[in-house]
Structure formats: structure tokens, C-alpha cells
């Protein structure tokens, strides 16, 4: 499957998903991200899912897991770009994604992540 581009910007990794993620893609993503964190030592991770118009329970849990793995490696995660319809569907499914921080877009995420990272170091 296609590699999802991971951008390294100062101390932050930015991952932008394409328009549909299969279950295998999601597991691969977990692997790619954790490897990238290990390699770069990035303190922040932004996952941009603005291209996704469907997020089901499997992907929801995957995203939670990725944030949890990142946290174990000392990295703070922000999930950005959730479409309104997706947000409402996730809430009704019962997935509030409490384990992961959120922001409206990459710009806002960079700002808040910056503050959170600064507080930590």
C-alpha cells in the first residue's frame, strides 16, 4: 500500500491521510509513525484527517492507540481536521477519543503543541 507522507517540521511530525484508509493501512500507519518518532526524536505529532469522510470504530481506536504509543515515547499528539459529520458519527458511536488532543487545523495544532511541549521541557 502507498506510503503516507510524514513531514518533519522543527520538532513536530505532520501526517496527512488520503481519502480512505483500510484496516491494513491503519496498522501500517501505526508502524510508520512510531518508527519515525524513534528516528527523529520529534516531541510533537499532528495527524491530519481532514480528507477522511468516514471514520469507523476500528480507525477511531487505531488513532487512540497511535496517540498512546506516541505518549509512551514522550511525544504529544494532536488530531486535526475532523469533519463535522465524522465528529457527530463518532460521538454517536460512543467514541469520544478522550485519549487524544484535538485542534481545528494544523496551524492551531502547531500553536497548542508548541505550548504543551514548552511546558514539558
Amino acid at each position, binding site marked *: 500500500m502507498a506510503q503516507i507522507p510524514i513531514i518533519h517540521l522543527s520538532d513536530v511530525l505532520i501526517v496527512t491521510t488520503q481519502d*480512505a484508509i*483500510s*484496516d*491494513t493501512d491503519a496498522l501500517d500507519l501505526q508502524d510508520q509513525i512510531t518508527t519515525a518518532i524513534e528516528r527523529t526524536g520529534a516531541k510533537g505529532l499532528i495527524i491530519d484527517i481532514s480528507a477522511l*469522510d*468516514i*471514520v*469507523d*470504530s*476500528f480507525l477511531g481506536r487505531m488513532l487512540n492507540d497511535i496517540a498512546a504509543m506516541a505518549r509512551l515515547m514522550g511525544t504529544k499528539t494532536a488530531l486535526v481536521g475532523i*469533519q*463535522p*459529520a*465524522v465528529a*457527530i*458519527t463518532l460521538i*454517536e*458511536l*460512543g*467514541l469520544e477519543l478522550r485519549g487524544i488532543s484535538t485542534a481545528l487545523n494544523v496551524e492551531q495544532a502547531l500553536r497548542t503543541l508548541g505550548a504543551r511541549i514548552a511546558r514539558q521541557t
Partner: protein
Amino acid sequence: MAPELLPIRVTIQREEDIIRARQQGRDMARSLGFGAVDQSRIATAISELTRNILRYAGTGTAILRPATQGARRGIEIICEDEGPGISDIPFVMQEGVTTGKGLGIGLPGTQRLMDEMKIESQVGQGTTVTIRKWLR
């Protein structure tokens, strides 16, 4: 006036089929006049059910079609497989089975997203889940 929509039959054998089924479901929902949020609900419900087919039965079918009931119009999806079947339906419909770390089978969540859901299952023979959502 939109042309009559024909039922769509999707064979579920691989992961790509989950994506295909939910995309077709979303398209049909849009053609029927469902709004963006309902399209998302319907597509997500299809995703949950077809994943169950793949996980528990290995293979199955999803049938997507318009539904009518008197003056009501909507969409109906039937997901069927010949897998192991569910021995305790009330149990799998409980909350705790989906939330938390385990895989869960997403049925209570799916029920919340749709207006109607019916599960028919025989141990050793298979399972059929029918879901419906109506236009408001």
C-alpha cells in the same frame, strides 16, 4: 425526479470490499437525499457490519437498496454471512462489548446510528443483520 435506484450487491471477501461497500452505501444515501451527517452514519454502519463479516465469517454479502414504507423513504442494508453465528444476541448488544481495548463487534454503536436494526443468527449457520434509516 431521480431515476429508480437499483439494489447493489457487494461481495465481502477482502478489506477493499469494506471500503467499496461503504462508499457505495454513501453514494446511494446521497442519491436518496440523505444529508451529509446521515451519509456518514450510514457509511460507518456499513463499515462496522462488513468488517464483522470479514472478521468472523471470512466472507459474506452486503446488499444495499432503497426502502419504502408507506410514505416513508429511506435506505436498507442487509449484511449476511454463513459464518459461525452469534449464540447470545442480547450479550453482544450490550455496551461494554464495544468500548474499551477489545475489538468488540460494533453492534450497539451501529444500532444508535440507524433507525432500525434486526439481527438473525443461527449458531453454525450464519448471521443476517438488516439495518434501515429513513429520510426525515
